């Protein structure tokens, strides 16, 4: 079943395996391919870190340094076998990544790349000043890799070690991305609020990709040390760190194979420039960096997303997608039975932003099996109230309790565990993920497979159930025809419905919908209303913010009206329509 998807990789692997046996293959080309493989490993980590996770790092070369120096010291000074130092190299890179990651991954936006430049350079100077690392001269006469009597001394034999590492890393990375953990990672780049609302521990996910990228870089460093049989600080400096990021961006930062392609482009380009430019320009120095820099700027102007996606969009074949088997079912979330009584109790909730009181001592209840609408003019504090309930914002005062339990400033990941799922006023989907994958994020907490089992593909039973649940919810909201489309290609109204499907994947007892009907056509609104009624009759409660009065009056059991952060009325739709305060708030004072 999975064969057609893996076919290109198998062809690629066979092709790479055949290359050294081509008669008359110049050894120089094999060295070039070795270098491409070494760079590709680091770039692949960066693809995951930067292209997918949105964390830009200039410091990957330093992690190569950790891997390379670890094995260099242990094999030369302690006489250990290179195979024994492999896990140690990876561990050292990983531990360094934890230490640096704890500091850096929480940084937002542009602090992160700048921070990584800084510690990248700091570590480079550390490598070149420490006595036991040989200062600027580094460490030489590192033993080669050996299996029995086969010593991988020449570039043609270590070639296999390098490219096996590249292929295995690529497979593991692709497996990781196509899993529960992978979806959480892919959601990071678009901001953390949506992912956290479905239970993703975003700092942990960021740290995970940071460590993963560092370990790949460490692996590359370990291979490099036994390939060159010597290490010195130069290849682990800032320039190298910058170059790895290039490779990822040129190849296509969001694509695993983009890393490999980028490595090939950059390594070959540099080689060509270094060997041919001096002939053209009579050996004037440093011309290759000039041309290289200019070519890079030109390339970015032509294909800002990288070469790999540009190539793929020109291929006539499209990858086939497997339909999830909807007969598989996730166990329902354990819930405290509450067929009657108060589900959500908001008591004098208050939120102040500086001098502005966005929510002013608002109190209301949501009962079990009830649809409550929160209405009010723009700026009345409706979305802020939602954010207080779901833990996105911390409240300045008051209490919010669920089933009688106080959820005092619980983080979003805790709130969703209680069975409260939400949608957002401004749609927060991952536009370059399919509808199915986006909705499956909603079921994050109902799966348990971790990163390692995903990489090794022992998560498939768990994964199939998650996808089945997602597919069922998509069908339920009536978007089955769009299940494989990219979420970004849908109309805004449909994207809102996708958000509802994602929230339903939580198997919630309370659904918070922020303007679900905005952008929907009349028929679609009616379908949405009937879906919500059906959910209520099935035992779910709904709290919704909505501006379409026809929709609200028709649907809601009870309405709470806010104006300037204060509750001005509460009651049945009929009572609200005749309430003089509400009319005043909406239409202005009647003279």
């Amino acid at each position, binding site marked *: 079943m999975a064969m057609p998807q893996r076919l290109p990789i198998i062809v690629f692997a066979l092709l790479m395996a055949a290359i050294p046996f081509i008669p008359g293959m110049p050894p120089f080309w094999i060295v070039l391919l070795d270098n491409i493989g070494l760079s590709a490993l680091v770039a692949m980590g960066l693809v995951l870190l*930067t292209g997918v996770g*949105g964390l*830009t790092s200039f410091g990957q070369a330093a992690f190569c340094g950790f891997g390379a120096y670890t094995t260099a010291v242990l094999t030369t000074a302690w006489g250990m076998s290179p195979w024994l130092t492999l896990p140690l190299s990876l561990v050292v890179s990983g531990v360094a990544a934890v230490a640096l990651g704890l*500091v*850096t991954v*929480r*940084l*937002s*936006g*542009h*602090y992160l*790349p*700048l*921070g990584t*430049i*800084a*510690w990248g*350079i*700091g570590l480079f*100077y*550390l490598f070149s*000043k420490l006595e036991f690392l040989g200062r600027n001269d580094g460490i030489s006469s590192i033993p080669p890799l050996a299996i029995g009597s086969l010593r991988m001394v020449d570039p043609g034999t270590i070639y296999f070690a390098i490219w096996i590492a590249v292929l295995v890393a690529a497979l593991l990375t692709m497996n990781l991305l196509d899993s529960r953990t992978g979806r959480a990672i892919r959601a990071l*780049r*678009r*901001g*953390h*609020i949506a992912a956290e609302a479905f239970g993703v521990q975003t700092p942990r996910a960021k740290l995970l990709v940071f460590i993963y990228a560092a370990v790949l870089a460490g692996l590359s460093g370990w291979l490099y040390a036994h390939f060159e049989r010597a290490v010195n600080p130069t290849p682990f400096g*800032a320039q190298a760190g*910058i170059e790895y*990021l*290039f490779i990822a*961006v040129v190849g296509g*930062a969001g694509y695993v194979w983009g890393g490999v392609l980028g490595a090939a482009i950059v390594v070959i380009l540099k080689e060509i420039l270094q060997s041919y430019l001096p002939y053209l320009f009579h050996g*004037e*120095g*440093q*011309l*290759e*960096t*000039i*041309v*290289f*820099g*200019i*070519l*890079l*700027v030109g390339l*970015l*102007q032509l294909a*800002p997303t990288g070469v790999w996606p540009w190539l793929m969009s020109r291929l006539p074949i499209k990858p086939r997608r497997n339909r999830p088997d909807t007969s598989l079912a996730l166990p329902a979330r354990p819930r405290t039975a509450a067929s009657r009584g108060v589900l959500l109790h908001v008591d004098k909730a208050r939120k102040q932003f500086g001098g502005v009181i966005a929510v002013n001592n608002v109190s209301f209840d949501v009962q079990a099996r009830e649809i409550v609408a929160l209405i009010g003019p723009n700026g009345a504090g409706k979305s802020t109230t939602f954010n207080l309930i779901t833990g*996105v*914002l911390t409240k300045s005062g008051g209490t919010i309790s669920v089933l009688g339990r106080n959820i005092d400033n619980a983080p979003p990941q805790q709130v969703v565990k209680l069975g409260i799922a939400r949608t957002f006023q401004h749609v927060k989907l991952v536009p370059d993920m399919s509808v199915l994958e986006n909705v499956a994020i909603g079921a994050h907490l109902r799966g348990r497979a971790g990163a390692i089992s995903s990489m090794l593909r022992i998560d498939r039973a768990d994964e199939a159930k998650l996808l089945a649940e997602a597919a069922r919810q998509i069908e339920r909201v009536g978007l089955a025809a769009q299940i494989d489309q990219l979420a970004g290609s849908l109309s805004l109204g449909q994207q809102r419905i996708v958000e509802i499907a994602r929230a339903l994947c939580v198997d919630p007892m309370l659904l918070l919908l922020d303007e679900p009907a905005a952008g929907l056509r009349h028929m679609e609104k009616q379908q949405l209303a009937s879906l919500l009624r059906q959910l209520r009759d099935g035992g779910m409660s709904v709290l919704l913010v909505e501006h379409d009065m026809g929709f609200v009056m028709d649907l809601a059991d009870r309405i709470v009206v806010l104006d300037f952060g204060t509750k001005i009325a509460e009651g049945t739709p009929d009572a609200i329509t005749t309430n003089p305060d509400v009319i005043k708030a909406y239409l202005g004072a009647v003279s």
Partner: protein
Amino acid sequence: MLFLVQDGITNGAIYALLGLALVLVFAVTRVILIPQGEFVTYGALTYASLSAGHVPGTARLAVAMGLVAFGLDLFAGRRSLHWRLVARAVAVDIMLPAAILAGTVWLAGHHGAVAFNIALSLLIVAAIGLFLYRIAFQPIAHTSVLVLLIASVGCHLAMQGFGLVFFGAEGQRGPPLSDTAFSVGPLRFTGQSIAVYLITVALIVGLWLFFGYTLTGKALRATAVNRLGARLVGIRTTLSGQLAFLMAAVIGAISGILIVPITTLYYDTGFLIGLKGFIAAIIGGLVSYPLTAVAALVVGTVEAFSSFYASNFKEVIVFTLILPVLVLRSLAAPAVEEEKD
């Protein structure tokens, strides 16, 4: 001890200038300007070459970049070629660098005064800065910070390569702005270090006035906050970007001219100096000018002390200085959502 502080403040003042330029460019264009260091070396070495009576290659580079910019301007405006557009392109992209080159060639034969050399160096680097934005960044101004950053790295590599071609691998020094020197207690002040302090303070105050009180300054800030919004109210965002780069280039060149009499500069020295400016800029959060200036003084002082007490680990200390700052920033990081891409 005191002389270390003094040394640190002199270095720190330069880092402050560079930090300010980086903040300026980032705020307006979202470009993290790695080639800022090249502006420093270009300014310094152009000044040194002029003082030695040579025609610096940077003047020719400015003409070449102007020609490319001219081509891009015509290509971008090909659908509505208006005589005013062409006239502007000719004036800015061709006449200006050509006039600068002519002035340089003429002056190189005459051993002109220091002031002329300085003015010419600034003009040359300013033109390069302007064209750099036009050529490398204007066509991709709408893309992500990451793509801009990589383009910025490409520019850094190309410019550093050009630097080697123009100025050679040898380090150079330039003549000081003034030869006066006096002592206060144990401290010795040279005219050069006084100039460093005065010009830094003047530039910081100038920038503050410019951004706080002039329409152009406010327009630049508006571009920084929201490109689309700025365009809708009639601010020409491409012009803002060009202006920001021009200012950054001039600030870089001034820093270079200020330090080249004190330290020997090589074609690749700028990168490290620029990075230390970065550290100051990061501490300042890439938005605050006063905080950046203070942070730069701290960076300079730490550098002076560590080069005295642990010179081997000077760079390690300076660059890891940022980690505690990052920790503080991450503890204080607000939980606001940022919309990326």
